């Protein structure tokens, strides 16, 4: 009986699971909250400061220091719980989770064990046109640990390790789902949706690469229709959305290969190696870690005022799902557009502002999804930057109006928009300065058309032989001659006028 095959399973790249198996997936997600100060002291939570500059006796766990709970962190965690349809506990408490690690200054993490702040919620996902409700077991608060910097890649074999406690004590929420997810794709979609919600709530910057959003995943396989759960493995250190999906798919195929050989899946913790695209067993102890949880005696229990919770509930912003729905009806957008636009609140805001000033919402959507997102990607900026540049809405609307009025063509419009965004100059000004106005003057256009016909006899011949698409080639030649300024629609008409309908040899 093989416990664990060394053989790598074949994992197809497309969206599918090993035939005859159903995956049961649950996620544990850590989200760093974006409070200004840490959860139990007044130190700054700013990211990227020099090591150990944002520390004090409390977050270093010095002898005699005591934690004082940051109310803002409770508010943020409550906001998250409400957005995930959780019950908010009227009475919650903090517990100590005891374990030794050099990045854990007190050798215990203040967390929540049996009475978490939020529980029994759900999140609805749209997967392939169907709505899937994924249960949320709990959302609880805890503190971040410090960070180890090893002299080599890992703690084992390093000559020395340095510790940076700047992150120690940054507030975290841990979101635990029910094992309701069925495919790796669903897991990724869930995580993306969760990320959007956190952004809408304004409680985290949810950057996986900076560790402010982290995900561990549990996965087991069973035959469809079976209700009993199989042996699960836990995959840790998933730090991109893609990694979550790839790792789970790999793990599903690995487990299926073992089960189909009649083997047993070992309950273990595995890591994800992005380079090899495989999960690998992590060094784990023989026995389960005993955290020896017990109530934190330094922090009195948390008694939440109902009215305060209701106030937070009322102040919740419109969340991604509702906004998508509204975009589809209010602007008659396809579901795909609504999905893309609503992923990030700054993008959705940007779209709405532009759509309010330009009559064709679908065109606005195309430009936002195409050009605006492309510009952000090219500069490596976060979508949030859109909020800081209200003038970009003016630029986009300006460009769209110029295109609509036929003053420039779409291709020129894209160039103009990019330059507007880069320089802050108005689109009209750029069009004037660079002489990009579309040429609509028929005499000039006809001149170019004749030139194109004269220099491309082959294309003319095939057009006459009935190949209509040869006209497109000729239009392209004219666009080239006009350095992009010709109105392609008029040029197309002129070509046809000169040569007659296709297939009519002369």
């Amino acid at each position: 009986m093989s416990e664990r095959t060394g053989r790598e399973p074949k994992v197809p790249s497309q969206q599918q699971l090993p035939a005859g198996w159903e995956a049961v997936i649950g996620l544990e997600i850590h989200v760093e909250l974006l409070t200004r100060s840490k959860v139990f002291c007044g130190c700054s939570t700013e990211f990227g400061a020099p090591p150990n500059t944002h520390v004090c006796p409390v977050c270093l766990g010095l002898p005699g220091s005591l934690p004082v709970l940051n109310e803002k962190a409770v508010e943020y965690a409550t906001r998250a719980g409400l957005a995930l349809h959780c019950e908010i506990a009227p009475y919650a408490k903090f517990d100590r989770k005891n374990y030794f690690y050099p990045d854990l200054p007190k050798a215990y993490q203040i967390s929540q064990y049996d009475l978490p702040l939020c529980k029994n919620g759900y999140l609805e996902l749209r997967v392939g046109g169907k709505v899937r409700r994924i249960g949320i077991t709990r959302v609880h608060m805890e503190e971040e640990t410090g960070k180890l910097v090893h002299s080599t890649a890992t703690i084992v074999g390093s000559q020395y390790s340095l510790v940076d406690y700047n992150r120690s004590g940054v507030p975290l929420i841990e979101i635990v789902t029910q094992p309701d997810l069925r495919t790796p794709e669903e897991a990724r979609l869930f995580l993306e949706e969760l990320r959007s919600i956190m952004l809408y709530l304004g409680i985290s910057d949810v950057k996986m690469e900076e560790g402010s959003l982290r995900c561990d995943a549990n996965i087991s396989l069973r035959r469809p229709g079976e209700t009993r759960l199989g042996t699960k493995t836990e995959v840790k250190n998933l730090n991109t959305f893609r990694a979550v999906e790839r790792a789970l798919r790999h793990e599903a195929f690995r487990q299926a290969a073992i089960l189909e050989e009649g083997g047993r899946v070992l309950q273990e913790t595995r890591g994800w190696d992005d380079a090899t695209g495989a999960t690998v067993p992590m060094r784990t102890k023989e026995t389960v870690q005993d955290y020896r949880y017990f109530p934190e005696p330094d922090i009195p229990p948390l008694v939440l005022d109902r009215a305060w919770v209701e106030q937070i509930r009322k102040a919740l912003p419109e969340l991604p799902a509702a906004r998508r729905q509204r975009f589809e009806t209010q602007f008659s957008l396809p579901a795909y557009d609504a999905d893309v636009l609503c992923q990030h609140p700054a993008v959705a805001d940007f779209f709405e502002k532009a759509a309010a000033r330009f009559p064709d919402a679908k065109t606005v959507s195309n430009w936002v999804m195409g050009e605006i997102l492309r510009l952000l990607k090219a500069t490596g900026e976060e979508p949030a930057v859109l909020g800081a540049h209200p003038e970009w809405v003016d630029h986009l609307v300006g460009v769209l109006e110029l295109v609509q009025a036929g003053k420039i063509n779409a291709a020129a419009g894209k160039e103009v928009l990019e330059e507007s965004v880069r320089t802050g100059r108005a689109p009209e000004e750029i069009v004037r300065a660079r002489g990009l106005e579309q040429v609509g003057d028929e005499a000039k256009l006809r001149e170019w058309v004749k030139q194109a016909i004269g220099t491309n006899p082959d294309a003319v011949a095939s057009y006459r032989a009935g190949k209509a698409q040869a006209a497109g080639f000729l239009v392209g030649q004219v666009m080239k001659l006009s350095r992009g300024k010709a109105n392609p629609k008029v040029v197309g008409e002129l070509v046809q006028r000169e040569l007659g309908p296709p297939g009519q040899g002369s």
Partner: protein
Amino acid sequence: MSDLRELLFASIEELSALLWQGEITARELAEAHLRQIERVDPAIHAYLTVVADRALEQAAEADRKLADHRKAASTGRASSPPQPAELSLLGIPWACKDVLCTRGVRTTCGSRILEHFVPPYSATVVERLDGAGAVMLGKVNMDEFAMGSSTENSAFGVTRNPWDLERVPGGSSGGSAAAVAAGEAVFSLGSDTGGSVRLPAAYCGTVGLKPTYGTVSRYGLIAFASSLDQVGPLTRTVRDAALVFQAIAGHDPLDSTSAPRPVGPVLEEVEKGVRGLKLGLAPEYFGEGLSPAIREAVLSAVRRLEREGAEVVEAHMPHLDYALPVYYLIAPSEASSNLARYDGVRYGLRTPGEDIIAQFSRTRRDGFGPEVKRRIMLGTYALSAGYYEAFYLKAQKVRTLIRRDFEEAFRSADVLVTPVSPTVPFRLGEKVEDPLQMYLTDIYTLSVNLAGLPGVSVPCGFSPETLPIGLQVIGPAFSEGRVLRVARAVERTVGAELTSGRRPAVAVNGR
């Protein structure tokens, strides 16, 4: 003042008056105490660290302030002369238990693992005393991490009882009590987790107050058992205890468990006498194991209080027998967690090992003494999966029953009067090999910590071998004024000879 040595046995109030009148200076007072430490501490070993320069600076500052106040009062610039209570600690030398963090001054907690630890901050109570102008002479000895009843568990050697150098001063605040008894400080601060202020106070013939949990900030108090620890003063008189308590008590935003309520005028209440007060006597405190001399001293004090107009009522503490086992589950559980941070990574002792796990365990092997290790093991066991419900959780439930016992008792009694310890100070080494015997020493005090109540130990007599005997007064939460009021009546009626007459020979004659 011709004989500065007489100052070494005076109360805060007496000294404050002399300072105010200009009869002595704070510098003279500090110097007299530093000399006394030099003279007698080699025999007693109360101090772990003496900070003479810091003390003399603080004294000079106090003298400047005293001069300013006097000038303001005489030229009439001050609308009214400063209240004595406000100024009562200005220039008064004190000793700080080494469990309290002191900025820039080594803080060992009686442990090798913190032998060279210099905190970058001070405990709130130290800040408050600094602010009041008190002069800190140094840091005094204690059982390692406050675990013990004899100060024999200190990594830096035992402290001896000034009344009999072959006997223990009690623990864990043994250094705090011995320093005050031997004229090495006018008052001191200790910490009390299961009786660690009251027991050494009783053994050394001083007053020791364990305040209501949450009235005195724990910020900067190195934690033993967080839900039980409380800082309290050790003084020569009950009124002094009230003065120091008023100076250190009050809400601290740095301690979430500190009570958000003002401290009442405790000192005013102290002299009100016991007429009409109901003193509860519970037979559970006077049973088997109590030394006859102590029983007689406590009951005789009660009879005197009756003559002063107090009424004796019967009280019961049906769950008192469980206090000891409950305490020895809860305190080590919390301690095992609180002491896990001493791993050699950031401060304190570090014994290198081939990997990080080895470094952790070797550091802790070398850094902790046997009693601390014993309690860490006990607590780790009690909290571990599978035993948590049977031990820790069950103990918390019984703790609630003990708390209810007190509530029930205080329906009929205003305070409870009990012994502090079943025996007089025992000989050094006598119980070291028998932890269970040692644990029994705290049998009358630790239920007060489990219930979070105030308790005071006040001298009430001497044993035939001339060893001090203490009496404990326990009151409902936040009744510090009332327990001190009863203690003051004991002091007035039976304890006067302790504060003026008898003094430890070593303190008078040197070693």
